[in-house]
Every structure is written in C-alpha cells, then in structure tokens.
C-alpha cells in the first residue's frame, strides 16, 4: 500500500467506528482526539481493526504515533508497504 491507500484504509476504519462522523473535512495534521473526541478505547479499536483487516501489529508503545492522520500514515507506511 502507498500512503494515499493507507489514508483511505484509515478513513474506512474511522467511518466504521464513528458512523455519524463527517470525515470529508478531516484535518490530517490535527489530532483525532481533538477533532473526533476519540479516547483510549477508540485507539485500541483502530489498532485492532488494523490487525483484523491487514494483519498489521501495532505494539502498545507505538500508540503515540496514531495521534493524527498524518502521523498515522507516516508510521504505517513502512509497515504496510507489503500489504496488497
């Protein structure tokens, strides 16, 4: 996957977690926490969905990298380069 595909994959996960949320105006540089009020339970969900859908493992100490869309995509790019 290339970064734009990874971004789409994250958008899919967020749309699944928060079906009422309008994600078309998501600011990639602002934190998910501030924009969507995501809490620790939701971050665990993003991690679990990545594992379920793409077999990507995110260890707990790396959760800080999931702060915003931009940081998430750059963190996942090397991990997901081999994902079809």
């Amino acid at each position: 996957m290339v970064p734009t595909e990874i971004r789409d994959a994250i958008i899919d996960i967020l749309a699944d977690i928060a079906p009422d949320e309008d994600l078309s105006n998501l600011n990639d540089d602002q934190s998910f926490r501030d924009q969507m009020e995501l809490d620790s339970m939701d971050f665990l969900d993003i991690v679990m969905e990545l594992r379920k859908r793409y077999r990507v493992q995110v260890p707990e100490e790396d959760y800080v990298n999931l702060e915003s869309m931009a940081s998430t995509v750059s963190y996942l790019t090397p991990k997901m380069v081999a994902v079809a």
Partner: protein
Amino acid sequence: MYDTIIIGAGMSGLAAGIRLAHYDQKVCILERHYTIGGLNSFYRMNGRDYDVGLHAVTNFTEKGAKKGPLARILRQLRFKWDDFSLSPQKGSRVVFPSAELRFNNDIELLRSEVARAFPSQVDNFEALIAKILDYDDLDQEAFEISGRQVLNSTITEPLLIEMILCPLMWYGNADSHDMAWGQFCIMFRSIFFEGFARPYKGVRLILKNLVKRYRSLGGELKLRHGVSKVIVDNGHATAIELDNGEIIEGKRILSSAGSLETMRMCSDVSEPDTSKAGAMTFIESISVLDREPAKIGNDDTIVFYNDSEKFNWHPPADDFCDTRTGVICSPNNYVYADEEGKLADGIVRITTIADFRRWNEMSDEDYARAKLKWYDKSVEASVRFTPDFRPYVIDTDLFTPKTIRRFTWHDNGAVYGAPEKKLDGTTHLDNLFLCGTDQGYVGIIGAMMSGISMANLHCLRP
C-alpha cells in the same frame, strides 16, 4: 472450545458479545431465562407491550455529541445514533413535602431550581459539581468513600442533600441509606449532566438491535441454558456445566450473573458470603389509561417523591412494601419524533420499595391477593404527588421482586446488584471476569459500557 463464554443475555452480556464476535472470537452467550434483556427485558400481555425495568434511558446526549457514555458505546458497538432512536424527556421533578426541584436534560434548569428553593446553597451546589467533575471513574478507593459524608461536608441544608440523593439512589443505588461516592458521581452525571430519554418502541428496540448485530457477527445465543457450575481446576476455570448437565468448554468466562451468584457457581467455592447480597428491590405498578397523562394535567416524565424531610432508602422493616417514597414514570411524556406520533395507550408506572423475602415466601393464592392489594396501596401513595389517574385506568399489571428474580436471577431480586462493586471485574480465578451491575455501572447505557469495557480489558487485549 469457545474463546469466551458469556453468562447472561442482558445489556452487558450482549454488548460484550458484540465486541468479541466483531474481533472474530468464537463466543457463546448462555441465558437461563426464555428471553433476553435481564432486568431490561420486555413482555406482552393482553395484547399490549410492556417493558420490565425501563423508565428512562439515562446518559442521554443529543445526536452529534462525541463525549459521554452514549457516544462511546455507539462507537464501540458500531451503531449509529439513530439506531437507538432515543427521544428526550419533557421534564422531571423531585418532590418532598416542603420543596420541589424540577430538572430536565439541561443542568441549567436544576441550577436555577436550587437557587430558587435553596438560595443559601448556590455556591455549595457549585462546589459539589466541581467535586463530581473531579471524580476519576476507575479509582476503587475514591469510589468507596461515603457519598453522604462528601455531601455533608459540601452542602449545609440537609433537605437539599436528601433531595439530590433521592433520584440518584432510586435509579442506581444497591446499598441502603448511604451511597458510595463513586456511584453517586456516576449517577449524578448520567441523570443531571446527561439526562433521560426513551425509544418510542421501548427497550425492545435496543435489545433487538443488539441481538441482530451479535448474530450477524457469528455469535451464538442460547436461551433456557442456565449455568449451574463453573468447573475450576487449580485457580483456572476450565468449563461450565449447564442446568441440564451438559459441559461447555471455554478459554475464558465473562459473567453478568452477579458477583455472589457467580461465586456460588464456582466448584472451588463451598459457601459464598451471602451477607454481601444486595437487598434493594421493588414492585412496579403499571396502569394503562384511556387517555394520555397530559390530558389529566400530568406533564412530568419522571417524579421522584418522598413524603417526609428525610429520604427513606431501606428495605421495608415490617411490611411487603414501603410507600413513603416512590417513582412515577409516564412514558408518554417524552418528546417523540413527529413521524412516530404518540404511544398507543396512556401509561403510568409506579415503583415502590419492596421486601424480597415476604414476596417470595407466599402461597400462589396469597401472592395474587397481595398483588392486588399493593397495586392499590402504591397507586394511592403516588397520587399525592401527581394528578389522580385512577378513574381512567383500563388495565393494570404489577410485577414484584419474584418477577425481578426470574428475569435477573439475582439474589433477593436485587435490582442494582450487590453494594460492593468490583470495578476491575477480576475474580479469584485468572480467566473468570465479571460484568454487569456488580462490576459497577448500572442502567441501560451503563450496563452496555460495563460489558464493553470488561470485554476490552480482559478478553481482547492481544
């Protein structure tokens, strides 16, 4: 071999089941009763639909709200806000002989009511709110402080203390007289900061959505499958045994049966401590009216009443029921969406404190007679605080602590479970966990939150 076996198909068990099945676990929910829902179940009688426990869904927040338990459980269970179709309350009251406090889903109304009825307590009430906002949900030590002690050191007008405690105890206190500070904060937020709502179709709408989702994810649900035993080997649960003798194996067990009730199932526990069982249980007198309550001047969603200056929150000392305090719920008095229209019937529900033992020990004949008698007495007590609806009653039902026991299997029919909560959900076994009322959250949203958080904490971590 299941990944997780869940005991009980109430709100907490179903919510936990959805979480686990969503993440591809092989899950089985076992329920002793012939229907789902536990305390928050529903039934049909004389062609009418009734809810068992539901007066109001607490923790209501408007569509679009991102904070609060309702928004969190919707995200965790992947539901849209519209799936629960919640309509907000019109307005409620706490009524004591010499004072009344109105409140709705906007805390400002309660603030102004406190200022009107207790002008000397305005600053103290703000100080109380500040303490509630500071309370941290999962701190077991802070949870167990005496709620009355905190109130006594914050508010100097005893009547106001009693009036604040009345609705919070009625909707979620397993203990008598006092209330754990943690439980107080949870209830204060869920009722006064968030608020009351109800789905037009009642609790069955929420339950049916939960079950549909659970099954679509491959979860198994077995009704009339009571668990009689948790088979323990060396501090580890290896399997459960059903009432019919069948053995089912699971890697872990999540039980919503109650703390004491679950301990009793464990093969390594010979005599669980029954002195820790909850004792607060109720009768519910349901009246169907030939008109809407509003037509006779009742616009209240919920009325919490108490007929003296001191709020009496105890099991009845020497009778079947204690009618000095009660709750009047009028399900018609929610702001339903225009396309839903009005409920088919006018309904008034009265909840009254009851004694489990007296209700449980009667012969069938005495039981039927007691139901009639206490319907009359509880309604008579309630019409001191709401317009008299008795001339318009066309059908009635009354359920008792025995009914609650049948739906929940809780000792004593204890509606809010045992006073002692186990916030982290752990037990003496390394793969047996608790969820539901005895874990610490009560109410419909609270129960779902309990199932979700215990599933996340103990059953899903990689």
